């Protein structure tokens, strides 16, 4: 039960920050509309909604990294975490407490973006439900990155690192353009990281290409396990020290 109380506190901390709402929910919608308007003036299909929406939803998850990283970094910096370490909360309570409240936020982000994308012509069908599940799994990768950053850095440093992270997510994932357009070493590097795989899995889910989902999703899940594992090991080490 303690972990749920802690999760509830963490969710309130995030959702009561108006900047979280503006960036986490507002920016992806603005980008969806902006790129859709651009598409109308393009002679070829660069930003078609079927390709754009999955990518932008994945891009929006990078704000989950910011929210979770900032919250953990702030708790560490303000001695709030020291207060919690002195309490009977266990390591498991911290992991659940920081992870769990991010999932409804991720779900809300997905739904808000899907509604906006539907208005722009994305069909809503059974594939969309599959996509929601796949996207929720992908969101845990981004939360894991946030927990790792928050464990290692202060909230101010997390802000700086996020600026770099969001650019990596944007440009090395194939959200804005097909990676095949550039190819070569750039594409190889992109596929060494999990972000392009996340976008591919989301696109395949929306398209209903179930067989194309798994390969990409396994890479994403593998990265999630490793990143979350490192975050937990470092967090437990800090707890003990």
């Amino acid at each position, binding site marked *: 039960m303690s972990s749920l109380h802690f999760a509830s506190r963490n969710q309130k901390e995030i959702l009561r920050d108006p900047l979280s709402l503006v960036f986490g929910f507002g920016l992806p919608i603005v980008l969806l509309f902006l790129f859709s308007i651009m598409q109308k003036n393009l002679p070829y299909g660069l930003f078609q909604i079927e390709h754009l929406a999955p990518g932008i939803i994945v891009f929006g998850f990078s704000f989950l990294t910011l929210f979770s990283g900032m919250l953990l970094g702030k708790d560490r910096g303000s001695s709030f975490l020291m207060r919690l370490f*002195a309490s009977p909360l266990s390591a498991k309570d911290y992991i659940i407490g920081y992870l769990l409240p991010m999932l409804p936020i991720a779900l809300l982000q997905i739904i808000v973006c899907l509604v906006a994308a539907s208005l722009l012509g994305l069909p809503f069908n059974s594939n969309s439900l599959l996509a929601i599940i796949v996207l929720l799994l992908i969101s845990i990768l981004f939360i894991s990155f946030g927990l790792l950053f928050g464990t290692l850095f202060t909230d101010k440093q997390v802000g700086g690192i996020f600026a770099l992270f969001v650019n990596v997510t944007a440009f090395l994932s194939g959200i804005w353009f097909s990676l095949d357009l550039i190819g070569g070493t750039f594409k190889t590097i992109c596929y060494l990281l999990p972000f392009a795989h996340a976008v591919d899995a989301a696109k395949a889910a929306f398209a209903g290409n179930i067989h194309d989902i798994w390969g990409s999703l396994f890479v994403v899940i593998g990265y999630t396990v490793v990143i979350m594992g490192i975050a937990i090991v470092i967090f437990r080490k800090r707890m003990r020290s």
Partner: protein
Amino acid sequence: MIEIRELTKSFGERVAVDHLSLSIEKGEFFALLGSNGAGKTTTIKMISGLQTPTNGDIIIDGMSIFSNLQQSKQLMNISPQETAVAPNLSVKENLEFTAKIYGFDKNEAIIRAGEMMEKFSLTDRAKAKAKTLSGGLQRRLSIAMAMISNPRIVFLDEPTLGLDVRARRDLWNILLGLKGQMTIILTTHYLEEVEALADRVGIMHHGKLCALGTVDDLKEQYNKNSLEEVFLSVTEEMEVLV
């Protein structure tokens, strides 16, 4: 009763706390003094189970806290040096949250939060977000959060640091009202605070406990007129008693 036995903490070559032995009685208001880097905060962290000692043990009512860490944590609470409150939660929510993570159910948490707000004169700010409170009120809330779990032992790490005279005096009055209800271990740099509040004082220097007794005992022992003179004398001479 808290019994600290030969407590030692080393960070590589540096010995932060050096064979500290001490007993603190149930319900006692004990003040731990020392210059910056004397080892006070490390000692508090070890007694509250936040840090593992290199050597030694701490026994609370016959139970080693390091062998029964989770059980021991239930008996203690802490108000850290920096104000540690959840900024976007209201005063009431901060208190209820703390009560709940110490195992109180929803109704108990509401009742305890109400009692704490009353005791710490925070009732009229119950719905205010913690980040909107003044420094003095945030400190009060932080201490109320430490008290809400009804701990047997509470640690106050420099609770009045940075507060103005009025806020400090108000907090002293609250702490005086709590005397005897629980064991309070206070670290501070304000010697007048120790004189006003503490039953007994320990002075640490370079990780060692160099003086121990009531304020009057120490004045007599060191033949000084004030605690400040005793403190300066002890930290200058480094005469190790324990």
